């Protein structure tokens, strides 16, 4: 087996292992939630007979391991149970929320990735210029401020003062792309600002590293222009590391998206998870937590794999 596929397989195996650990954790955490599920459904006035009946129906009398396997099996096959609050099928509740979150994430990625790669290229080209220094100090500010603080500041300036964009998005308009983009402008900008700093820094660092290498110097001596070297030689080499940072950032975004959705009352998956925790809606908590953790694991695995696969040195050594 080649070295490369060995690394990828190992990483994929670890990813699956983590997913398994995640499912155990999610199950365990929801198992020890204060208050019995049966009481949660029936309320405090339930008689002991009613509680016994519903425990029987939910299979709560079964041994823990058997319930775990049933739950996991149901989850994998799309039978995630019914919401305790509304009785609706969890998969049906989750589907539109998932689309909303994905829509926001894609919108943010489409803006953030080209923007930060361009800014990173400019920082590398004008290394140590005022522009470069200014962007790196802005980055320090952005990484040390939580998402919702950025969101509040954006809302104060662009929604309250200038009244350009709405400060809440209760019902995203999927019919009209322009109206959708306008509605989601502030949440999108919040995500872009939180991603920008890392992406610019990584693009810049990778490009500078390539520019300092002997072959870039050789090209310069041959008379190639700085821009030609940047785009022809440096940028293709930066794709791997930058993609890996993008994947890591999307992973990070997954964790932070709940906060942003709550700021804007946006009906996404993150807000659904937070609301479900308030209502102690176990099946919904389990399903949303599993989706978030799985997506996070997937992004981290992709980040590692892309760093390995797209690194020309490791690829050739294989």
């Amino acid at each position, binding site marked *: 087996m080649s070295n490369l596929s060995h690394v990828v397989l190992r990483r994929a195996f*670890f990813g699956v*292992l*983590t997913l398994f*650990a*995640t499912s155990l*954790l*999610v199950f*365990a*955490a*929801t198992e*020890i*939630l*204060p208050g019995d599920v049966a009481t949660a459904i029936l309320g405090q006035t339930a008689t002991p007979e009613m509680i016994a009946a519903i425990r029987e129906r939910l299979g709560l009398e079964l041994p823990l391991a058997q319930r775990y396997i049933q739950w996991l099996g149901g989850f994998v096959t799309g039978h995630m149970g019914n919401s305790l609050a509304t009785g609706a099928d969890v998969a049906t509740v989750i589907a539109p929320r998932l689309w909303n979150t994905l829509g926001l994430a894609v919108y943010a990625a489409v803006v953030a990735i080209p923007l930060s790669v361009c800014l990173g290229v400019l920082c590398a080209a004008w290394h140590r210029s005022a522009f470069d220094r200014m962007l790196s100090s802005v980055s*320090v*500010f952005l*990484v*040390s*401020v*939580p*998402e*919702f*603080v950025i969101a*509040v*500041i954006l*809302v*104060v300036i662009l*929604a*309250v003062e200038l009244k350009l964009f709405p*400060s*809440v998005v209760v019902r995203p308009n999927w019919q009209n792309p322009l109206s959708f983009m306008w509605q989601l402008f502030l949440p999108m900008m919040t995500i872009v600002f939180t991603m920008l700093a890392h992406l610019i820094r990584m693009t810049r660092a990778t490009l500078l590293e390539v520019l300092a290498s002997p072959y870039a110097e050789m090209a310069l001596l041959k008379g190639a222009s700085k821009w030609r070297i940047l785009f022809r030689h440096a940028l293709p080499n930066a794709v791997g590391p930058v993609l890996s940072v993008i994947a890591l950032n999307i*992973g990070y975004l*997954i*964790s*932070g998206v*709940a*906060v942003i959705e*709550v*700021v804007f009352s946006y009906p996404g998956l993150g807000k659904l*998870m*937070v609301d479900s*925790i*308030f209502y*102690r809606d176990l099946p919904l*908590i389990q399903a949303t*937590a599993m989706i*978030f*953790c799985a997506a*996070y*694991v997937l992004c*981290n695995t992709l980040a590692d794999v892309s760093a390995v696969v797209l690194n020309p040195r490791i690829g050739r050594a294989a």
Partner: protein
Amino acid sequence: MTSAAREGEQVTIMLPRINIMGALGVAVVGLIVLAAVLAPALAPYAPAKIVGTPFEAPGRFLLGTDVVGRDLLSRLLYGAQFTLLVTFAATTIGFVLGTAWGFAAAELGGILDDITDFTVNILLSFPPLMLGLLIVAALSSSLTVLIAIIAFIQLPRVVRVARSIAQTITALQFVEAARARGHGLVAILVAEILPNSWRALGVEYGLRLTYSTLFISALSFLGLGIQPPDADWGLLVRENLASLQEDVYLPALLPAVAIGIFGIALNLIVDWLSDEESLAIPEDLR
């Protein structure tokens, strides 16, 4: 080569030359800590007392009032206490445990090191905020639980860094010499490795403080952190978010800006501490 810190010898702690941004960071963090400690003396009103009408503009009250008419300045000052208490307590606990674990894994190696590596990788594969939310959901949002959760989330991150710092030191000759002299694990960790890694650890501690601040603020903002009528800065933003719909923005903006300023000031200190290269090994050992 001599031991940088033989038993009984004074360890001199050399800080990098202070720069303007570093000084600014220290001053701001100092002021915020002072404001939190002196909150009972500085606050004009009790934090939970309703003294006016909702969202009053500054005037009668220095910064105006909050969503139910409590004095915003008083709530901000007392809020600092909760934000800082959770930040420092959780970071310190996670940091001390994580450092001890990471150092021990690096020094002992073998199976302990492998187990450490594996556990840390598993723990790091959970999205931190979701992990926090799940544990809060399972256990409740008491102050103790919140501190424990954040310490736990910091743990694998600290272990990883402490382990890699220690790995560069355990291979050095003075540690070898201490082992040959028959010193026990604790003696080696405390007398040989710790004095030679304090700076790298200091930088990591600063980063962890920032992270804890962001974390408790986010949890409280989601309503799953500090519980009313108490409030840290994150919860203050949440409580007053409605003010943005009424075109009043100070009550939501001020606590948000306070979190931002505190985070930035901590990062300025970290930048100052990590100003020089090769943090793990002091100058004379390079």
